[in-house]
Structure formats: structure tokens, C-alpha cells
């Protein structure tokens, strides 16, 4: 075939001594859709931003159609035929689609005056290229639906007929039907011979839409595969995490017994929030870990948040130790004995200027007091040290501000905070996200300890393997509701079966 429209050789980039990209080689052909995947911090956005001209690489070359280029600014990237749709909303809410699309490149007439006719016309032309010529281009963008906003963002990127299009997490806020819709648009663009780089953390999607999948891990490309019918999620997830699926993470549960005669700790009846989940019914017993399996966007995080009190739900009841509870805020859930480890731990879990000690004890201050009701330094020290040791948190001292810890250690600090709280019910959303392999088994051990000491644990993980390791039973969630329950002693309590159930309930067209 011909020279790829984009070729990247040996590109590296660092920010303040953190290596974001190391010696990356990458190619893109015209009319090809390549998905770029990797965990948070793997380098996907960095690579995209370099191609989009937001900052230059420290080392390496970029070639467009075989010619060496230096992309010094977003404007330059645009003139070179590179369009990008960013992760964060790049639309101004009060302005209309037409105004947003032409922002920064308005068409003028008679000197400084805006040429509305020309802009509206070109706007409609661009939208029809995306199959949406009937969208109302005069309404403020804030009144559009999510899909329409994504389409408007894409229209903005496609306006100048780019040859290369970067789509950074454009499907993140969308549900399955909306994603299908968007994929039609993307496929149309592919037909126009535009090379597309597609970033998404929804692995299933990437299998559906891409010609190739490129996996980044710790700033390096670890896998570059052509997608074929036999490819499965695990072929992508495995290099993403650096663990081959065949590795046995130490089988942690030695014996298992049925949940008969076990006290019901948490009971959820017919819970629904009208949007993300509905008809949720289950009981959590003491000495039990229940795993929730499903894709991100299936509504599990919202379900968890509603039980804890972070979010509100519309209908249904929740009973904690036989008492009906209505938690309207996290502190109420905590009071009733329900704690949740959220999945965005760095943003929502940490006060970065404060110390390791401060961050670990913030949830448990009441029980760490000493003389005169003042917080006891001895107690906070011993409690913090306990978890620094157990989770192997690498920090020079307890009084180190957490902003100076690495991402993985920051995660551990947040987990430590909740483990210290020692609530009756512990809800964990993605327990080992961003954490190294050794710490993973530590975290599993600690969750099992919680279970053994009479607590109840609800866990969600996109990695079914994890759930298989530690859960007594697994509830499979799809499109916001339960699809199946599989107990540990069931013959189908295994990864292939569960993955199959998850994916067969998701309908994404493969046209």
C-alpha cells in the first residue's frame, strides 16, 4: 500500500521529570480507524495532543505523507489537515452550533462583519457530511442532547476537511444506542478516506469500530494488532495491564461456604434512579463479598453511589441491618455504616496539599481522639502506619504532602482511608485501578479480611478475573439491571462464561 498519512518515529515526551511517552512509533493509513487504548496516564492523550500541536515532542519525528513536519501550534495542526475532538467539552454553551463551529475562523464580509449566510451554509454542508443536515444550528449548544453535542464537536473538527481526525473519548458520556449512532457517522468519515485515531476506555467499542488497536502502557507501545473476528477483550486488556491473563493471581479464597444462615446486612429492593439503573434487588450478608460485573456505563457506579448517599435514587428501598434508610449525602451513609471507595480517587479522594496522615485519618477523626477530645497524634500515627505498612505505601514520612506521591501510592492512601473507617458495608468501585500487581494482592487480602471479620463488601471491577478471585458470588449487570447471578460453587463461575454473558447483552451493530 501507499505511504501512511501519518507516521510517528521515536517520539518521547516528559512533563517535569515524569515520562509520559517513551520512544513511540506509530502509523496511520488513510481511511483507517486505529484505536488507542491504555489505562489512565498511559500516554494516550499526550500522544494525541502532540499530533494536535498542543505541545511539541521532546524527541522524535512526525511525518505527514512521508514529509517531515513540525507541528508547532493547534492552528498549524489545523492547516496541516489534522482535526481533533477533545475529551473535555470544547463547545461554548451559549453560542449556537454554527457559531461554535466557526469560532476562531469566522467568515467575514464587507470588512469586519460576520457573514452569517456563508457560515450557516457551510455549517449545514459539514453536518450533512456527517448525516445530520437537519440539526438546528441556531439554538444554543447547551440545549442540545449529548449525542448532538458530540456531533457538533466533530463537525467543528471536520470543517476544514482534515485528512486525520483524532477522537478523544467522544463516546464517554453516551449510552449504547447513542454510540451506535455515532459509529455510523465515524464510518462515513472513514469512507471519505480520513484517517481516524479513536481513544476510548470502553474496550468492547474499540473491537467494534477499529481496523487496528494500539495499546499504550507507561508511555510505551506494547501492542499493535489488526482487529479480526477472533479478537477478544482480553487480548487488549492483557497488554494494557501488563499481566497475561494466563498468570494466576494467587488463588486467595481457600474455602467457600454457602450463604445460608447468614445475617442480612444490606437489603436493596427494587431500586431505580430512572436513568442509569432499575429493578435492582439483592441482599448482602455478613462475611460476604458480592461482585458486580459489567461494562463501564452499565450503571454500576451510579448504583453504588445511590446506596452510599452520594447520589439520589428515584424509587425502591434500602435496608441496613433491617432498618430502612434514606441517605441523602455521604455522611449519612457513613453514619449508617456504609462506606464507598470511589473510582476517581485522586480527584475525589485526596486533598493534595495535605499530608499522607491527614488524608488517611480524615474519615475516622472521631475515634482517634485522646486527652481533652483533641486529636491524638499517637493514634493517628499508629493508624496511618498500619496501612502504610499493609498497603506498602511508598512515602518518606507520614507528613509528606500527598501531591508528591506517585499516582499508584496516592490511590493506596485513599483506599487506606476507607479501610481505616472499617464500616460494616464497604463498597469498592474498581479496587485496583492504577495500582501495581503487588499491591493488588494486598488489597484483595484486605478485602477478604473485611469479609472474614463479619463485614459485607460490594465490589465492581471491569476485570472479571479480579471478581472471580475474591467474590462469593457475582451479579452481572447490563444496561442498568441484573441479568444473571452466578454463585461461586456454580460450574459456570468462570471468566469466559461471565464475559460472554456481559457481551451478549450488549447490542452494538457490526455493519
Amino acid at each position, binding site marked *: 500500500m501507499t505511504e501512511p498519512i501519518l507516521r510517528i518515529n521515536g517520539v518521547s515526551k516528559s512533563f517535569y521529570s515524569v515520562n509520559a511517552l517513551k520512544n513511540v512509533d506509530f502509523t496511520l493509513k488513510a481511511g483507517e480507524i486505529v484505536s488507542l487504548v491504555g489505562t489512565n496516564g498511559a500516554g494516550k492523550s499526550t500522544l494525541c495532543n502532540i499530533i494536535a500541536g498542543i505541545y511539541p515532542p521532546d524527541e522524535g519525528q512526525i511525518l505527514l505523507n512521508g514529509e517531515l513536519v513540525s507541528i508547532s501550534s493547534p492552528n498549524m495542526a489545523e492547516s496541516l489537515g489534522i482535526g481533533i475532538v477533545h475529551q473535555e467539552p470544547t463547545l461554548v454553551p451559549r453560542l449556537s452550533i454554527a457559531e461554535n463551529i466557526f469560532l476562531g475562523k469566522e467568515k467575514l464580509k464587507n470588512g469586519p462583519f460576520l457573514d452569517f449566510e456563508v457560515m450557516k451554509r457551510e455549517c449545514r454542508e459539514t453536518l450533512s457530511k456527517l448525516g445530520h443536515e437537519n440539526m438546528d444550528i441556531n439554538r444554543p449548544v447547551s440545549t442540545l442532547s449529548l449525542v448532538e453535542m458530540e456531533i457538533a464537536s466533530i463537525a467543528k473538527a471536520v470543517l476544514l476537511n482534515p485528512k486525520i481526525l483524532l477522537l478523544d473519548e467522544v463516546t464517554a458520556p453516551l449510552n449504547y444506542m447513542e454510540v451506535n449512532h455515532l459509529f455510523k457517522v465515524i464510518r462515513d468519515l472513514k469512507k471519505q478516506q480520513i484517517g481516524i485515531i479513536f481513544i476510548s476506555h470502553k474496550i468492547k467499542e474499540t473491537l467494534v469500530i477499529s481496523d487496528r488497536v494500539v495499546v499504550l502502557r507507561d508511555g510505551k507501545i506494547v501492542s499493535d494488532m489488526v482487529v479480526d473476528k477472533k479478537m477478544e477483550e482480553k487480548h487488549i486488556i492483557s497488554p494494557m495491564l501488563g499481566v497475561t491473563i494466563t498468570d494466576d493471581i494467587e488463588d486467595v479464597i481457600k474455602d467457600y461456604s454457602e450463604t445460608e444462615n447468614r445475617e442480612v446486612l444490606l437489603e436493596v429492593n427494587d431500586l431505580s434512579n430512572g436513568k442509569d439503573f432499575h429493578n435492582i434487588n439483592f441482599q448482602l450478608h455478613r462475611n460476604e463479598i458480592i461482585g458486580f460485573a459489567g461494562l463501564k456505563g452499565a450503571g454500576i457506579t451510579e448504583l453504588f453511589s445511590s446506596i452510599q448517599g452520594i447520589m439520589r435514587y428515584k424509587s425502591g428501598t434500602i435496608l441496613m441491618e433491617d432498618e430502612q434508610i434514606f441517605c441523602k449525602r455521604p455522611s449519612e451513609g457513613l453514619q449508617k455504616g456504609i462506606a464507598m471507595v470511589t473510582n476517581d480517587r485522586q480527584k475525589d479522594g485526596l486533598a493534595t496539599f495535605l499530608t499522607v496522615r491527614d488524608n488517611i485519618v480524615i474519615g475516622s477523626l472521631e475515634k482517634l481522639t*485522646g*486527652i481533652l477530645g483533641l486529636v491524638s497524634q499517637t493514634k493517628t500515627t*499508629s493508624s496511618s502506619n498500619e496501612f502504610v505498612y499493609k498497603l506498602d505505601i511508598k512515602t518518606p514520612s507520614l*507528613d509528606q504532602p500527598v501531591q508528591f506521591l506517585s499516582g499508584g501510592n496516592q490511590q493506596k492512601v485513599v483506599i487506606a482511608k476507607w479501610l481505616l473507617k472499617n464500616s460494616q458495608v464497604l463498597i469498592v468501585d474498581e479496587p485496583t485501578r492504577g495500582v501495581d500487581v503487588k499491591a493488588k494482592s494486598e488489597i484483595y487480602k484486605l478485602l477478604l479480611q473485611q469479609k472474614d471479620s463479619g463485614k459485607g463488601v460490594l465490589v465492581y471491577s471491569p476485570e472479571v478475573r479480579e471478581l472471580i478471585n475474591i467474590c462469593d458470588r457475582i451479579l452481572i449487570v447490563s444496561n442498568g439491571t441484573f441479568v444473571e447471578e452466578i454463585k461461586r460453587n456454580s460450574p459456570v463461575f468462570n471468566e469466559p462464561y461471565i464475559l460472554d454473558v456481559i457481551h451478549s447483552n450488549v447490542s452494538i451493530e457490526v455493519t
Partner: protein
Amino acid sequence: MTNETANQNSSDILQEKTNGFTNTIKKLMRSNVSILVILFVLVVGFGGITNPSFLRFQNIQTIMRACGIIGITGLGATVVLLVGEMDISMGAVMSFTTLLGGMFIGKLPGQATPIILTLIFGLLTGSFIGLIITKLKITAIMATLGAMNLFSGLAYLLTSGLNILLYNAPLYKKMGTGLWFGIPISFVIFLGLALVLHIVLTYTAFGKKLYFTGANSKAAWLSGVNTSLIKTASFAFSGMCSALAGMFLAGQTNQLIATLGVGYELSGIAIAVLGGTAIGGGRGSVVGTLLGALTYQSLLNLLALSGLGTYVEQVLRGALLIIIVVAYATLNKKQHALR
């Protein structure tokens, strides 16, 4: 979880106190306090050299007297800034609460009654502001700007725009001009309040929650902290400080006028920022504010001694606020870049 503290004998307590002490020192050195101490020494040194009357005891008393008033507002400003907000209404609240309380002088039994009432009014107005910010979801900027106008107007209403001379209020006079072993009472109270605040902020659960709320209010909320309560309490404290400072000022100037507190919100914020309190919240200390108050007031005193009038002081206060805030913004940028 181990329970080592079952028997806290004296050696444990000593260990704890030493640990606490060294930690405080470490924390201070990491913050800008060391720069502040140098700055203070420079100002005092410069003053002593250039102006013979600067270091005279009477002048030092003058500095302390004013420093106490400004310092108290600085403590209030510090707490609100720590929790991630800002209170521009402090000056207006100062006038309003002092005047409102002053209305009761001679009308109720007990010399201390109007004083206690004023403090209560301070707590109430502060709570009011805190509540509208947390419950009605008005941004703090608009809330305190609106409150500034509201209470300023109310202060004028109370006095009908007139100067009211304080009479029959010996306790106020004592507050304003009295001495305790040669030290002006306002300064003594300032130090006492600072000590109490320091203990609360550093050693109580409330204090730790306050810092956390300022550093990341969402994370605090998710961790079970009642952020609305903490913010409202901060504003209530700031209101009380305004009221307290107002009474000292009234006692000193011997009059109740609607423009009593004008400009004090400015000084309060300037002192807090000078002392290392970050405008975004979560960073700052009482010790810093204390040093900031001393440095700031010494500087102003020095300039006043050089014969420049009140208007020059006003200009300098405005300029100092801008300079201090800009300087700290630049310093913090550098810190971030080094990360």
C-alpha cells in the same frame, strides 16, 4: 487495629507533645513562615534605624494596639480563606454589629451586656452569610459583596449618618485604650484568640476537617465531612471577629460611626495572605497570620511616623493588598513548577 493508647502515661504524653512540636516546626518551615520572620525583622530593623521614635515603648504600644484590631480581623479572614472562601463584607459587618450593639449601651443592665450582644450579632450575621452561601448556593463573591452593601447601608441607617460619641461606656473605653501589664488589651485578646484558634485548627477534629474542606471540598464531603456546617461556622467566626475588632476600635476612637470598619476587610485579607494563607483554601496557619499582622502594622506605623496622612495609609493598604497577592501567586507558581 491495635489499641496502644490504653495506658497513656506521662512519657507517652511527652513524646506526643514533642512529636507535635517538631511536626509544627517542620510544617512552618515548609510554609512561608521563615520568609515572613525575615521580613518582619527587616521592617523592624529598617524602622529602628531610620526613625528614632519607632522603637520607643509608647510607639510599640501604638503598634500593638492597632495590630490587635487588625489581627483579629485577620484571624477571621484566615479561617474563611482556609475553608476556600473569601469574606469581603468584614468591614461592613464590623460597623453594623458594633453600632447595633452600641444601641444598647446604657439601656440594659450590666456593663458587659452590649459587648456580649455585639459578639452575638457578629455570630448571627456571619452565620447568615454562611447559610446563604451554602443553602441558597449563592457564590461567596456575590454573597459577601451583597452583604457588604447591605450591612453598610444598615450601619448608616442605625446612625442616620451621624457620628455618635460613646459615653457611659467605660468598658468599651477600657477595651480600646486599656493596658494589661503595659500591653494594650486589644493585642492581648488578639494573642489569646490566636492561641485558641491555633489549638482548634491544629489539634481538633473540627480544625482538620476545616483544612480538608478548603483543600478539596468534594473529597471532604465524600469522606463524610459536613462541609456546609464547616463553612457556615467559618463565616460565623469571621463575623464574631469583626464584631470584636469593631468594639476595640470604637473604644479607641470613642465614637460610633457608620464608616467604622471601612477598609478592614482589605487589611484582614492582606494579613492572611501575607501570612501564607492561600486564596484557594487548605493552606495557611495562625502563626503566619500573627507574623503577618505584626509585619503589616509595623510597616503602616512606620509610614505614619514619617508624617504621611490617613489617605496615604489608604493608598498603601490598597497597594499592599495587590502586591502581597501578586507576590504569593508568583511564589506558588514557582513551587508548582519545581514539582
